[in-house]
């Protein structure tokens, strides 16, 4: 499955980097992260617990950053597994500084899914993944703006990350009308975010040096 898009962050590249250098910030910025461990400069391990509607569960993943050309681009390889299946993705990210101090992030990716997710969740995958990527980026952008504002005013960061429920509610709205006819399709709603959120994580993590 191909994943691609653009997102405009409301902050300079350096701040985007700093924000995500801190795994603790990320962990609270993205709902459901139970742990996010740096194994090395280029390798991260994480466990997401996601709750969307009545469905909840764990999804463990590994991220590897490669082909870094700081501060422009890098390649991310994601490997995630859960009870409902697995996902493997390769993504390429480009950060372009904008004249007004913002950062344009361009991303393309290829995601392979297998297991229950693939066999019964097909009609969910496209919509849900796009929704999750959009929301994830929005959440990170909000965290970025809070940090930038705090720095400007020299005060602590005021940032309230979206709750799992809010996150899930927004996905559900995007998928509005889609009938979740199987437990597996419903599971797709939290595994896909798991994968895509991890993609986002590394998307920005890769800028941490």
């Amino acid at each position: 499955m191909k994943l691609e898009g653009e997102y405009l962050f409301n902050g300079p590249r350096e701040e985007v980097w700093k924000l995500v250098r801190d795994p603790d910030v990320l962990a609270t910025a993205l709902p459901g992260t139970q742990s996010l461990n740096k194994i090395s400069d280029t390798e991260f391990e994480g466990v997401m617990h996601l709750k969307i509607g009545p469905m909840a569960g764990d999804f463990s993943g590994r991220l590897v950053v490669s082909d870094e050309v700081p501060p422009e681009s890098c390649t991310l390889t994601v490997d995630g597994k859960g009870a409902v299946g697995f996902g493997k993705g390769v993504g390429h990210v480009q950060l372009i500084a904008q004249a007004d101090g913002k950062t344009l992030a361009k991303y393309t990716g290829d995601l392979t899914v297998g297991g229950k997710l693939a066999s019964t969740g097909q009609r969910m995958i496209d919509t849900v993944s796009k929704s999750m990527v959009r929301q994830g980026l929005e959440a990170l952008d909000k965290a970025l703006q809070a940090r930038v504002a705090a720095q400007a005013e020299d005060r602590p960061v005021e940032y309230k990350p979206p709750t799992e429920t809010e996150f899930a509610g927004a996905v559900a709205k995007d998928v509005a009308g889609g009938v979740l006819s199987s437990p597996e399709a419903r599971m797709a709603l939290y595994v896909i975010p798991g994968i895509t959120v991890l993609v986002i994580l590394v998307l920005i993590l890769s800028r941490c040096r």
Partner: protein
Amino acid sequence: MTTKYVGQRVTRNEDPRLLTGQALFVDDVDLPGMLHAAFLRSDYAHARFKSIDATAARNRPGVVAVYTTEDMGAFWKPGPLLVPAPHSIKDVIFNQRTQIPMARAGDKVRHVGEPMAVVIAESRYIAEDALVDAVVDLEKALEPGAPLIHDELGTNLASYVRQEKGNYVQARAQADVVIQRRIVVDRGVAAALENRGYVVQWNAKEQELTMWATTQAPIALRNLLSATLGISENQMRVIAPFVGGGFGPKIMACQPEEVLLGWATMKLNRPIKYIEDRRDNFLATTMERSQIHDVEAVLTRDGRILGLKDVFIHDTGAYNPYALTVPLNTQTHTMGPYEIPNFHTEFKVVFTNRMIVTPVRGAGRPQGVFVMERVMDLAAKELGLDPVEIRRKNMIPADAFPHEQGIIGQDFIPLVYDSGNYPATLEKAKAMIGYDTFVKEEQPRLRAEGKHVGIGVACFTEGTAVGPYEGARVTVESSGKVSLVTGVGTQGQGHFTSFAQIVADQLGVDVRDVRVVTGDTAQFHWGTGTFASRGITVAGNAVNAAAASVRTKILKHASKALGAPEEELEIVNGQVRVADIPEKSISLSELAARANPMRGSVEPGTEPGLESTQYFGPKYGATAAGTVAMIVEVDPETMMVEIKRYVIAHDCGTVINPLIVDGQVHGGVSMGIGQSFYEKLIYDENGQLLNASFADYLLPRSTDMPHVEIGHLCTPSTLNPMGSKGVGEAGAIPTPACFVQAVENALADYKLEILETPLSPNRLFEFLHGT
């Protein structure tokens, strides 16, 4: 002997129980202390299975045991070969790789759904593994350097078979026209409404294993599984109760689930139940159809086929326990009802990382028919001939039977058509659909109105009723009622009624007074199973023979009892009486009691009771045949196809129960329509099945089905006393070929050439817009 029941539309004996929820299906079995099994199945199509850690699962409350291949120890071994390779064909290559009970840590998993562990009670968990490239493309699988499914083989070639009738090369040299095409048929599932299910119970004190199974082959299952488990056949009982549809995959025996459940129940000494869920069924129950054909036909200018060359690749999935039944059927059914003097046919069977391929209603025949019928249509277009005319021209004439077709089939002997009148089926279908009127008047008129309507006509033969044999035992009980036991199972074919009709006519009793038992190895343990449209012919003739034998005994005893010669006796309503003197009679009940005295003495050599066990094995399979015609309307905007009329002229020899035969034809047609336009398994390049649910794999619904009009013809089979032939697969075999022809005809202004099945609205869109 009067035929009161055979040939009549007798309503079914078994229906009241099925209609009121009082019929036993496997999942209804409930035993004290019963545990439940679940199988951990591979999410990967092709991966190295590094290790498995069952600790967490074993510690979960409610889990009684978790078994991996390590626990199985020396018990682990590849399963039995269910169908032998055809050694009667010269130079066959056959690389046997039968199904293994579980993937082994340290080895590989070879298809999504392959079992890796079995849990008895709850919890599933995942094993660690690494992904290896999956093999899904049939042709790429044979290229050097392709990832190997079975590394030790050094190739993905599972088998190679070549057969030749006549001399194709010579025929080609003499032909006026050569037609060459690649034709593709793709995968679908049987999708019986009842998934596979088992309840196994080992009783250590009695040293006996009982297994309720949704099987089409209870006897084969008992024999093979008891051998696998190291117990005597006599220690194991397999019961196939009412089964919610078979359609082929349930003929498998010694499947991983069966082996593991049998082993586990003996280990734990507790009953265990496993009922597949629908996703497991899509992934781990056998399926069918993928083939790629490169066909070449050579003809004279006036449309006579001089020769046919068909080279095809057949997908067997990750293992090949059912050997070559499906592709052999394809070979024999390509010729169909036509005289093909020179025929070169060869196939390669390929291992892929998909589920195993074994017969599904049609069992390789639809592919052969699809190829031949497409060739006919292409030739008709090329030569400017009417599609019906070119078929008639090439048909085997009605006086040419028995007709040797010179190719060896699924029963390992050369194909011979016993009887048939193919031109008559063509004429009948043509008349029923009003072919001439449609083509000359209706179609032009509707086309002028802007409608895209088309007509298709397809002819086929259907090899049925193959051996080796079946058996039956008929017993008149002291109540006067009759018991019939046979080894085949029943999955909706109406055996409880059709077999009873045969017995009732022979023994002069009410059809409702014949109690039929099928599928219980404790009651009958010789036979092979329900497959290849053989139940009514092979088992039915055994039933007929057994009943006839009991009738002889009855008359012999009655003759003595009544003091009248046997020729003067008749049996009516359970009474044996002297014709013309009805008062001189004795009841079957009385005769049965007398034949089994509780005390006293008998003449030495006397057999007790009014009972007989007989077997029937035909010399070869009876060939049924037919012609299908349909009229469709295509909406070129929505790509939806509406079947306006569906007509089938079918010849299955002597008909025992027309109501049941009609039902079988309807059912086959619905599967055929499914496989034409609604059903297709979609795999991605990693071997993941993407539509493993009814939400995404579409079965035809009541609103998708046309009204099927059936015309019966009858050329009795010369191979069995009843003259019957099979009919179970009839509707499924020719339908895709006819559908494609009709759709092409409907879209004639687009000048399409459709060489594949199944189609779909998406695919039609691609055809129309040249993508």
